[in-house]
């Protein structure tokens, strides 16, 4: 008989790594249920960044002196960690960006401007975050290409059967889809979409902003062509993100931003481009932020991404049950076994901003608003939700405190 020993994550122990939890908020322990928005940072990352600044900081790829070498080693080391993290073939395919948004814009401009035209169709989904929606809409329009969104069903999952009809609108050139929806937690069938896109000669762009912090990523298994994620949601500092892209595509693409670092030779007549990944990294990069991302990747890898995913699945199932008990509460999206650790809901007669403010007085931080998902909100016929999202440091009793806060809101408004 096979015995599987699945290491369980000890959220209470991990929580001690995060200094933010040491201070009370409104006199109560902080229940931070907004990690889908941005995560808190562990001491391991903070210490690495501080130590880097105190002992190794210089600009990268320019200095011949000792500090420059140390800085290069730390920066390049972070890139190698990011390569392993997504299972890319080479570090040349791993481009440092400011965030996921910049990575997606890079592809939209550098690939889209040269490859899209009239008769072409760009497909996104109704679940997309604005940063994986608006760049495609904008570039498609500029190039005279058609743009459409794959619809969702009433359970917040993609209706892949709609692809046949969409396909009739034009030559599919690019499909852009998030791995995990930031509002509903839906886990999208990206590998299936990538195969569909490739059969049609289209490329597949994946927004992994909500996946990278919470589950193992493998660009080979996904079969995509580009994948973007953002550091600040995965325990790293803000100001650093990663775009992974297939070498053949990156090599054929024109640069996105132009300036220092990304050139090989500049003359008045003509400029040639640096090798990958530098061709896409104009100017001084976010150096310490990249080093911080490397430390965050180590932290997540040591904790175990499978263990993080399982922990959040348990919390999500628990939250689903507890929230369902609250009278007048509507939950949006798929059932807990088909989603990541994000739940969006509304309380009848109480606006999400009021809900968020009331639970804040109990030290519970949740997001209220449209979550940069206006097309999705329109599709759901609402203009905002309250969203609770979980991470490796989330405890079940924090969900209990949210539920208590919701009862309080109902009483206040009742």
């Amino acid at each position, binding site marked *: 008989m096979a015995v599987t020993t699945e290491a369980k994550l000890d959220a209470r122990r991990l929580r001690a790594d995060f200094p933010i939890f040491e201070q009370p908020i409104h006199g109560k322990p902080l229940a931070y249920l907004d990690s889908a928005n941005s995560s808190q940072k562990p001491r391991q990352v903070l210490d690495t960044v501080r130590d880097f600044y105190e002992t190794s900081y210089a600009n990268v790829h320019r200095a011949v002196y000792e500090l420059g070498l140390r800085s290069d080693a730390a920066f390049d080391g972070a890139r190698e960690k990011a390569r392993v993290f997504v299972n890319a073939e080479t570090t040349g395919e791993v481009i440092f960006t400011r965030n996921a948004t910049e990575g997606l814009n890079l592809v939209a401009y550098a690939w889209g401007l040269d490859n899209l035209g009239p008769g072409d169709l760009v497909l996104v989904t109704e679940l997309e975050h604005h940063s994986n929606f608006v760049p495609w809409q904008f570039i498609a329009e500029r190039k005279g290409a058609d743009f459409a969104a794959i619809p969702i069903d009433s359970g917040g999952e993609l209706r892949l059967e709609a692809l046949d009809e969409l396909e009739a609108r034009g030559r599919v050139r690019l499909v852009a889809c998030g791995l995990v929806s930031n509002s509903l937690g839906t886990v999208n069938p990206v590998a299936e979409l990538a195969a569909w896109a490739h059969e049609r000669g289209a490329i597949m762009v994946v927004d992994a902003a909500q996946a990278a912090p919470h589950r193992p990523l493998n660009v080979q298994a996904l079969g995509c062509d580009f994948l973007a994620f953002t550091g600040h949601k995965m325990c790293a500092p803000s100001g650093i993100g990663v775009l992974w892209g297939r070498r053949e595509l990156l090599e054929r693409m024109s640069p996105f931003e132009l300036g220092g670092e990304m050139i090989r030779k500049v003359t008045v007549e003509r400029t040639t481009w640096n090798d990958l990944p530098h061709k896409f990294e104009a100017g001084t990069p976010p150096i310490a932020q990249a080093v911080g991302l490397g430390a965050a990747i180590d932290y997540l890898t040591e904790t175990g991404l499978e263990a993080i995913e399982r922990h959040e699945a348990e919390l999500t199932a628990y939250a689903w049950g507890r929230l369902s008990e609250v009278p007048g509460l509507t939950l949006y999206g798929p059932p807990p076994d088909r989603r990541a650790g994000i739940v969006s809901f509304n309380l009848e007669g*109480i*606006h999400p*901003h*009021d809900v968020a403010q009331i639970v804040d007085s109990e030290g519970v931080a949740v997001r209220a*608003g*449209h979550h940069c998902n206006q097309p999705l909100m329109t599709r759901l016929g609402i203009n905002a939700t309250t969203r609770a999202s979980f991470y490796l440091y989330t405890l079940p009793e924090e969900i209990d405190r949210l539920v208590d806060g919701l009862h309080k809101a109902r009483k206040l*408004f009742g």
Partner: protein
Amino acid sequence: MSELDSLYREVILDHYKNPRGHGLIDTPDAEAEGQNPLCGDEVSIAVAFEGDTIADVKFQGRGCAISQAATSMLMDMVKGRTAQEVATMSREELLDEVGIPLTPVRLKCALLGLGVLKLALHKGRGTPLPEEWAGVDELELR
């Protein structure tokens, strides 16, 4: 807790649950709408005049308690005033009436209705607008 009690004090919740001046005016002399896109608050306001004074003013909207209650209070405050008086009405006058401490984010909620009303009067009666709104057709508080 006490902070929360003062934010959602009885009068705010009362205006939210039983808004004054809620509804439509059949043939308004001035109207406008606006929103606070960040949180999704929406307000539209219609005004009917008798001579120079506001004889009737009604609003419709959806959004958080602060935005809807403040607009409801505003309806009570401006009836019987002239367009000119309302155009120069200070935000402090409304905020005093609302009477709760507001963070910058919630301040926008509270001031949405007043902005929409000033825009309606500008469109219907040509009263001056705060400079930063010059040329707007529909108010968007950012």
